[in-house]
């Protein structure tokens, strides 16, 4: 008797699930909407119907199409929100848990650049804020009636339209997939607090086409254009001559082509005919998916024995292995106990080496306490004295860090002896061999400070950059301690020279920034492009004889400020512009 009751229960239990529709199959794209924008590609300056902010508009106006020939961008795929807008033949298949026969994920494969996404159906949470962002982001879906609603977070920076209109990496994508017999409709809504005033909604359609076969799409970077190192093609503000091509060719009012939320509403037709007093509907609020709340210390495994610990001041890199533990930076002094607790969870071996990326307190605060507990691999030359092997971990840093930390700095007294590096190197690099891999410590000249070090774990393929690269704002150019904009740009290009991406400009070499989330080559490329464009703008203004105040009021970074700027705190946008302005000498190498 018991068996049957059990059988009935399972049938009942599974019944509501059967109500799902099955989206898997081969779907042929239909370009019956915006065909000229989707297949040949949008015209320069065509921002029609995009609820973009002023900042986005300046970003798009500065965009020069030849940026796509930079090695970093040649194999860039469409991100998840734009995949459906390009050549979009689609294949969807289900991944089923064979124990429970539940659908745990939908996989999609889009024709252009063979982009694949996973839509998790098993209710798993989104990863924490500083997990790496990818082109396809992290998607979770659930059925609402016959609609599959998909929330996607952790998207890399992308574009709302591929003529330079930006879509920031803080955007959230909400999608609704609906199947009507052989027709599949996707409603995709982009919520981007940085570059959009309103949620931006678009729909795309497919038709079932069982005989379709999608070819592979290998893409390999080849540098064909001879250009000086570090050059990024872009137009200076106000100098883009192509913006009026589009309105002239299609006889459209220039103002309309500049986009903005008004152009999305029917009332705008009246505005175009000149009537002034039109009230447009209120902008609805932007939705941001609830990222896992992140407070206190967070540790994530990068690759092999390399972990990234964030939340204790500057990011800390932990290299744990058979020979012991190596740390890159030690965070703020008051967080040291928590840091030591986290290290204890990863490895029971003592800390052998500490590498300081530079002298600031949010990276060297824990030196004293952690070093004292560590045990370096050292020992008397041949006198067989083993007691000095317990003199604590070896602290490695560039010579300038030792010079600056051991001398009083303005009103600040010299750092205590325990904080100082014990093993300073000078010259371009220093090599270690630790935990079965070559570790190269590279010294970029005069970037964030004059004592920067970046640590390259060669076999694990991970680079800890220190504050040369920070994802939470403009780079802090510490002129007082030898920092400079030109050195910063050279350092970023040096990182891009070491990085090799796996496929489609993603993964491969991972990069642990001084602050912010775990990144890869594309994130650094965006950061390098931003800085180069800002430097060019300020240099151009300086050449035209503008004073610092005039430059700051001209606000040359307004298109990047919503994402990277700060109006308060110890490093505001005005201070950043001033640092760049002073850093560019009269000659100021472009």
């Amino acid at each position: 008797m018991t068996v049957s009751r059990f059988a009935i229960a399972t049938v009942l239990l599974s019944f509501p699930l059967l109500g799902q529709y099955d989206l898997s199959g081969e779907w042929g794209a239909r370009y019956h909407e915006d065909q000229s924008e989707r297949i040949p590609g949008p015209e320069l300056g065509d921002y029609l119907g995009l609820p973009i902010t002023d900042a986005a508009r300046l970003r798009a106006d500065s965009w020069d199409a030849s940026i796509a020939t930079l090695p970093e961008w040649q194999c860039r795929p469409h991100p998840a929100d734009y995949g459906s807008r390009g050549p979009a033949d689609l294949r969807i298949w289900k991944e089923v848990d064979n124990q429970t026969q539940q659908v745990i994920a939908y996989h999609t494969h889009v024709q252009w650049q063979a982009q694949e996404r996973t839509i998790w159906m098993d209710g798993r949470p989104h990863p924490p804020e500083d997990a790496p962002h990818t082109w396809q982001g992290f998607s979770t879906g659930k059925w609402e009636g016959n609609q599959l609603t998909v929330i996607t977070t952790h998207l890399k920076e992308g574009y709302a339209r591929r003529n330079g209109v930006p879509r920031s990496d803080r955007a959230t994508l909400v999608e609704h997939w609906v199947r009507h017999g052989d027709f599949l409709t996707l409603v995709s809504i982009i919520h981007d607090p940085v570059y959009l005033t309103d949620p931006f909604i678009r729909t795309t359609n497919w038709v079932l086409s069982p005989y379709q076969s999608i070819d592979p799409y290998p893409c390999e970077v080849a540098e064909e254009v001879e250009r000086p190192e570090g050059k990024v093609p872009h137009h200076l503000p106000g100098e883009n001559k192509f913006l009026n091509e589009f309105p002239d060719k299609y006889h459209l009012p220039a103002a309309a082509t500049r986009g903005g939320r008004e152009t999305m509403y029917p009332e705008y037709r009246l505005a175009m005919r000149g009537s002034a007093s039109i009230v447009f509907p209120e902008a609805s609020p932007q939705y941001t998916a609830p990222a896992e709340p992140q407070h206190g210390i967070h540790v994530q495994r990068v690759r092999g024995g390399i972990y990234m610990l964030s939340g204790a001041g500057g990011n800390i890199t932990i290299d744990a292995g058979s020979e012991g533990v190596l740390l890159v930076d030690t965070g703020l002094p008051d967080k040291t106990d928590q840091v030591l607790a986290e290290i204890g969870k990863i490895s029971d071996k003592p800390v052998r080496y500490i590498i300081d990326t530079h002298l600031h307190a949010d990276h060297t605060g824990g030196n004293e306490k952690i070093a004292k507990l560590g045990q370096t691999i050292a020992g008397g030359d041949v006198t067989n004295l083993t007691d000095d092997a317990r003199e604590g971990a070896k602290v490695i840093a560039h010579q300038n860090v030792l010079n600056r930390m051991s001398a009083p700095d303005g009103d600040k007294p010299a750092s205590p002896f325990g904080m100082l590096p014990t093993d300073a190197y000078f010259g371009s690099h220093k090599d270690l061999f630790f935990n079965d891999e070559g570790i190269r410590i590279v010294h970029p000249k005069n970037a964030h400070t004059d004592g920067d070090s970046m640590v390259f774990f060669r076999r694990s393929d991970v680079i800890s950059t220190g504050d040369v690269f920070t994802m939470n704002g403009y780079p802090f150019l510490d002129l007082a301690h030898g920092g400079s904009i030109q050195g910063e740009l050279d350092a970023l290009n040096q990182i891009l020279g070491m990085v090799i991406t796996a496929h489609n400009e993603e993964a491969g070499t991972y990069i642990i920034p001084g602050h912010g989330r775990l990144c890869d080559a594309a994130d650094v490329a965006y950061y390098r492009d931003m800085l180069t464009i800002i430097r060019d703008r300020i240099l151009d203004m300086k050449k035209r004889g503008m004073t610092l105040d005039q430059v700051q009021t001209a606000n040359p970074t307004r298109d990047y400020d919503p994402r990277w700027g700060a109006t308060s705190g110890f490093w505001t946008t005005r201070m950043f512009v001033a640092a760049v302005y002073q850093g560019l000498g009269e000659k100021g190498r472009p």
Partner: protein
Amino acid sequence: MTRFLAMALLVSAPLLAQVDFSGGWSPLYHEDLPDRIPGPELGDYLGLPLNDAARLRADSYDADRISVVPEYECRPHSSDYSMRGLAVMHVDAIRDPVTQRLIAFHTRMNFQEMERTIWLDGRPHPSEYAPHTWPGFSTGTWQDNMLDVYTTHLKESYLKRNGVPRSDKATFTEHWVRHGNYLTVATVVTDPVFMTEPLVRTQSWILDPTQVIGRDICETAAEVPKAADYVPNHLPGTNPFLHEVADWYGLPFEATRGGAETLYPEYRKKMEKPEHPRERCERYCACGAEGFVCLSPTAPPPDKQP
């Protein structure tokens, strides 16, 4: 139970034909102490059956190379020379946990932590394509109380730390024998490239139960700025230091050039008179005497005859 006993007896029997070398051994520098601790004089090829090629290589050697070429800074002695250098040695016996049969001796020297394993389980030597290493690949066989060790796959290294080369085509045999608390090792280096006949040398250690071996860590640091393609060397015929050893110790210069014939007693008859005979010893005279540290030479530089 009895079958087990029989087996145990059988298995343990051949085991007994071995001697236990494990433990801490401290070297007895009662031979060639100035050459082994302070280090050989430049141009001192005494007692080495060298050929001409080796002599020119040694004459071209410039001691500056160790500090200027970063790759030399942390170079350890290979297993044949580590018997001659700072040789505080620790030997461990490695036994197969299942059969308790001795399968290897593992030795560790305090200079540059030179570690090597002498395999006794009869495993073959690796192929000619396998990488060569500083300790080389060693296998041992018992001759009753004497352990014969045969080593191949050695990296290029030196017979003496003053530039006398030993090629990577050399093979190296050792004969270990223990008399009570004294361990004696005869080493035979066969190097067709640089020597006309095998070089035989013998060294002794005494058991030291209280021995402590620490760490000897080396990290290269390019401290001397140099051009990329600069390797300190003396062009043929331009090495000014070759006569120093003959001058300091009143020896005939020809003898200090080494060569197989200088190793045999009859050479004493063929030797000429030294160019600069000396009366008293001026350098490293009391090296090794009670309480005398012989790291600092006492003699003034040799009188520079034209």
